[in-house]
């Protein structure tokens, strides 16, 4: 094989190694970036929605207590604003079903909330429930707790999933760094070996030729630079040998 081809192939191998490492690293980093996005889209949105729902529920609960105390105006205002914010958050959760069993939990929330809402919507216009704390504790509050539990379940599912995803993200980021590190070390070793080969198969023959030419004098033994490879250096050695023999035969004739 010709020296030029050998060196070219050596560099091509190095380039392919670096390209493979680069492509792999890029792929892993893209995956890390996707994981971050999915972490935000899949779980964080629902966790935030759950928090809003819980806050709305607490506000609704306060509103109901105000109704029982006879504070119709303020109580009604609080309840209707909390109801719309609860329904808004529930809508976000309904449109962000990404985990297994999440649809069931969201359906539970809807179901319990409807029952809960029925409890405070109907006595709204009458004064029958005014001061009736027994009705609140035995009926309304139990339903309030049921909705709250359903929302908490949804939040827990997403939090657990987010935690798992975050843990995986740490592994994935390590995985994204590793090809780079391995490629750097491999490229360094490769360069050392390439340097060794260049030195062995390029510089050593040049030195051999130079030494053989220096020590050669007309009439001495055959010219031999000790080149064992079958490349351009061997050709050069042969050409020099031919040249010497031509020169010697010319000198002998003269």
């Amino acid at each position, binding site marked *: 094989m010709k020296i030029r081809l*050998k060196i070219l*192939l050596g560099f091509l191998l*190095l380039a392919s190694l670096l390209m*493979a*490492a680069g492509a792999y690293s890029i792929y892993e980093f893209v995956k890390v970036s996707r994981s971050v996005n999915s972490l935000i889209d899949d779980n964080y949105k629902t966790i935030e929605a759950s928090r809003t729902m819980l806050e709305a529920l607490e506000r609704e609960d306060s509103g109901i207590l105000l109704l029982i105390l006879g504070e119709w105006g303020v109580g009604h205002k609080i309840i209707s604003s909390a109801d719309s914010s609860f329904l808004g958050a529930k809508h976000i959760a309904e449109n962000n079903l990404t985990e297994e069993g999440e649809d069931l939990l969201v359906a539970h929330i809807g179901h319990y909330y409807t029952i809960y809402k029925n409890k405070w919507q109907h006595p709204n216009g009458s004064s029958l429930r005014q001061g009736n704390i027994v009705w609140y504790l035995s009926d309304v509050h139990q339903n309030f707790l049921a909705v709250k539990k359903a929302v908490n379940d949804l939040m827990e599912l997403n939090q657990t999933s987010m935690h798992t995803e975050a843990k995986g993200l740490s592994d994935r980021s390590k995985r994204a760094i*590793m090809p780079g590190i391995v490629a750097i070390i*491999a490229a360094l070793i*490769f360069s050392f070996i390439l340097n060794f080969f260049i030195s*062995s198969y390029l510089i050593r023959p040049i030195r051999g030729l130079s030494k053989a030419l220096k020590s050669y004098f007309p009439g001495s033994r055959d010219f031999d630079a000790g080149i*064992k490879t079958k490349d351009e250096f061997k050709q050069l050695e042969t050409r020099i040998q031919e040249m010497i023999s031509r020169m010697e035969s010319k000198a002998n004739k003269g």
Partner: protein
Amino acid sequence: MRTDLILKYLGYVFLLNAVFLLISAGVSLYNTEESALPLLFCGIICLVFGVFPMIFVDSREAATHIEGLVIVVSGWLLTCIIGMLPYLMWGGEFTVINAWFESVSGFTTTGSSILTDVEKLPAGILFWRSSTHWIGGVGVIIFVLFVLPRGRKTRHTLVHTEISDLAMTDFQYRAKKVIRILVGVYAGLTILEIVSLKLCGMSMFDAVNHSFATIATGGFSTKNLSIAHFNSLSVEVVIIIFMVVSGLHFGLIFGTIAGKRENLFRSPVVRAFLLVMIIGIVLASLKLYYNGDYGIADSFRYASFQVVSVATTTGFATVDTAAWPAFVQLLLIYFTIQCAMVGSTSGGLKFDRIFIFFKSAAKQLRMVRHPNAVFALKVGHKSISESLERQTMIFIVLYIVILFSTTIILSFMDVDVTTAFSASITTIGNVGPGFGEVSSMGNFSSIPDLGKLFLTLNMLLGRLEIFNIIALIFMRRDV
């Protein structure tokens, strides 16, 4: 020493690993796992490093003895470094030290693991883990030489460096034939075990992985509970049979199949090896039964599996032996020291050396009685030369020195004595499980990092037969 020639042979080691890495990547791709890319990337690296020296080095000259020694030892070290790459890339429980430990343990067919949950690993990585056993079982260099078409002199040098002189006494063939016998018997046994385990109801993936680990006398399992996971008598029986066969001299197995004079039935070492194992099984079964641990059938079942597993240096488990009576534990420790036969895939001290040791002791006793008489040490109809006898004795002494040194080093790192001793003995013997924290159902994760490095050195010393590594360390003085 010709560095380019050594690099060329190390290139072949890279290529051999590349083949198995690419197959592992294929396994991952088939199972649509994330581990496909790390394995593929490692395969590409190995391919590049393997092809590179071939471009430049066209030397066909034979390797000298020293060059052969460097090729064999550095080939093993290199393959262990390659082996750790997929683990490092995968991450999880694999830190740099843990990846190195798992890789060395795999290639040296020790089977000790740092993993607390094997089943968490993807199929591709598990396959690579088993492949390290299979590559290391018959020997990295033997595999390379099997593929290489030419270089008779180099082949002869490398075979005599990789295979001990003691093992070569039962290989009365040329290097090329020895390699063919080794690889042929090895591959044949592996295929036979895969088929047998499949017939026992194992999945193809588990059958392949466990066959790789059995024939290589390794011990890596794809399950946290090792063979206990399958809870199948037929699986245990198949594995016991193949563990025993893998612990025998491959040359004698070939001789038996080919109807040669040198065969398993004519070898006194084989007879003694099997007899000692049977005595061990009977004693362990009786003790377990009378201790009230199990009924008579279960005592025999568990004792036979564990004794064979340890005596052949495989290291599979069907039960946690750490809970067994002290007598049985000591019995298993004896088998950990004894190891299997030379010429098999096992590492460590080897039963043949113990056999020669007792023969030599008997000879010395006879010499005390008859000081002027000349006695020849014979194993069967073969005479053991004085130099081989001396080499065996020195090997045993060095083995014990290394064993106790590692125990002391581990104790210095606050590892309890039971764990330190059994970890040292099990790693130098390439067995796998020990007692204490490193018992058959435990792992090596609790050993300090520096301790793990010493244990990997033990594994390499046990696998490369001590002399090769020591010769390489002190090579400069000789050259």
